[in-house]
């Protein structure tokens, strides 16, 4: 079973702060992490490989320092790491990103299963997984919380929906995006860390992908960010004090005023 896992390096969100003077994100000293949902994707791929054999390839599109994210995936059991990196990819929206990743997946020789995270912390769209599937003309399932079985060219998954979960059976090859509930990612072993340090990271440029370069990056992106701003926090919160009785009275009064009661 050949599995390709899509991972992205993102700023560790707990550290994200907004500079109140300039209204911009402060990125200094923000540690980069592997997008949390992608760690579940890696773990699930490694478990499938351990059960059934095969290889796990981790793939990312990003700046050179994203190699660090790939090394983390190698330290917990991925076999091969590919970094797709080129200035030509800058400014990519989800369409151009998924187009690029799909081209890279094809270049790896394809996969029986492609696993992505539910969404990223920074882009935060959850669109890349489904869009990759469409570029590869593969069926997909989003919000997968469990792989019930994976054999005989079929993948049976449980997929989280608003009020419970659905059970779907997809043919392989296919694409899935996974949620946190699917597993508990392992910690890297010492041997894994050592192996990851030495491992070679394959790097592909735009030219290596053999596609029309205009489909990458900004020129391949239909959307444009025209404005960014920090939302105003106009909350003038009221602290309700007093005895429990007084607090409850005041809260009920306030909730009535605002119309929710």
């Amino acid at each position: 079973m050949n599995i390709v896992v899509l991972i992205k390096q993102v700023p560790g969100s707990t550290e994200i702060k907004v500079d109140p003077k300039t209204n911009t994100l402060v990125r200094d000293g923000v540690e980069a992490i592997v997008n949390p949902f992608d760690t579940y994707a890696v773990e699930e791929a490694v478990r499938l490989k351990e059960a059934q054999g095969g290889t796990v390839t981790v793939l990312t599109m990003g700046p050179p320092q994203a190699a660090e994210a790939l090394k983390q995936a190698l330290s917990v059991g991925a076999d091969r790491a590919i970094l797709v990196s080129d200035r030509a990819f800058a400014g990519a929206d989800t369409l151009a990103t998924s187009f690029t990743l799909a081209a890279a997946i094809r270049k790896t020789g394809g996969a029986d299963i492609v696993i992505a995270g539910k969404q990223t912390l920074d882009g935060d769209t959850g669109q890349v997984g489904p869009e990759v599937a469409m570029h590869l003309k593969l069926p997909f399932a989003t919000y997968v919380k469990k792989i019930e079985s994976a054999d005989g060219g079929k993948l049976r998954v449980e997929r989280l929906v608003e009020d419970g979960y659905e059970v779907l059976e997809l043919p392989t090859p296919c694409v899935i995006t996974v949620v946190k509930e699917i597993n508990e990612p392992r910690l890297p072993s010492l041997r894994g860390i050592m192996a990851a340090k030495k491992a070679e990271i394959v790097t592909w440029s735009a030219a290596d992908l053999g596609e029309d370069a205009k489909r990458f990056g900004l020129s391949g992106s239909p959307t444009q960010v025209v404005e960014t701003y920090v939302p105003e926090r106009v909350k003038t919160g009221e602290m309700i004090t007093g005895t429990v009785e007084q607090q409850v009275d005041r809260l009920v009064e306030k909730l009535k005023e605002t119309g929710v009661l």
Partner: protein
Amino acid sequence: MAARITKKCIGCGVCVDVCPYGALELFEGQAIVSGHCTVCGSCAEVCPANAIEIEGAASEGLGAQDKAAWSGVWVFAEREGDGFAPVVRELLTKGRALGDELGEKVTAVLLGSGVTDWAGELIAAGADDVLVVDHLDLADPLIEPYMRTLVELVVNRKPAIMLAGATTLGRSVMPAVAAVLETGLTADCTALAIDSETRLLRQTRPTFGGNLMATIVCPERRPQMATVRPHVFQAGEPDPGRQGTTTVVEMDKAVFTTATTFMTKHVELAEGERLEDADVIIAGGRGMGKPESLTLLNDLAKLFDGAVGASRPPVDEGWLPYVHQVGQTGKTVGPKLYLACGISGAIQHTAGMATSEIVVAINRDADAPIFELADFGLVGDVNEILPALIERLKKERG
């Protein structure tokens, strides 16, 4: 492709301060650009020396479309049980306003089996037209048949704008449709407006867990697509007297084929317990102390006709299932009232609830960060305040 700094740069650093992505720095008296650049253009706008050029136009690689041929606002009428997801009415009200501003029609798109009769409800909610594809194979919401049906409709009828709820279905089918049509899709929008000059749809969405808002347009490709968070737009009162047309569209059966099988669905939350639809969410965190205390949340939720939410610790402890978790790795909700009980307000939690209309926090630590977000804060013990609140509300209801 990125922002390019030309020789005109005077090293003032204004661009460095304004870059939302931290992609610019000053180096030897000149601004330089790093790989973080998303070519958003903020820097070029503020540069006093006109020294920044934005290379390459967006979407030039995708081919031109005759934009004049595309018109109208479409709303995907997602079904839920025997009716529509609540977001559909919200979108029809908003879509109506956008359509009126453009002077264009609003069309609801209804897919399913045995649903043709439901079209009237969509007209009452604001649609001029309802396009119905009614087929047995559309009974279960499977991606490929839904995607192909929508693509087929769009290609033949050319809407300028297409909106869907940011539900699990909307967030799965819409990216597929957008990728096949090679157009843009903005996820999880919280504001939509028409640019009066360009007539483009301005789509605003929170990123970085709500720390930054981004307004996005799709200038050259059609349709302009967006998924929209439930609860951000107010649904208008339905008008049963509204006139509209219903068009039942026949499709070639090949459109419905798929190798994916829908096996079963397990319902874990009854109707009314779904967090995404709830007007009121009563949420508990680690501060609830023990699983037994959760009955307080349930009781209160019943009194408010609301749903029960949770931060991550109670879910990790197994006190209640993951479908209740709110936050970065859980659900994103935006109810009218979010009551946070024994929740500290870590950013991973608030990322999922910061757009709630009214936030009430109960926490015994007066310095808990959740109070920064709260409209009303009560410092105290949840085990004392919640029972008192429940008593009080019960009395009120008689």
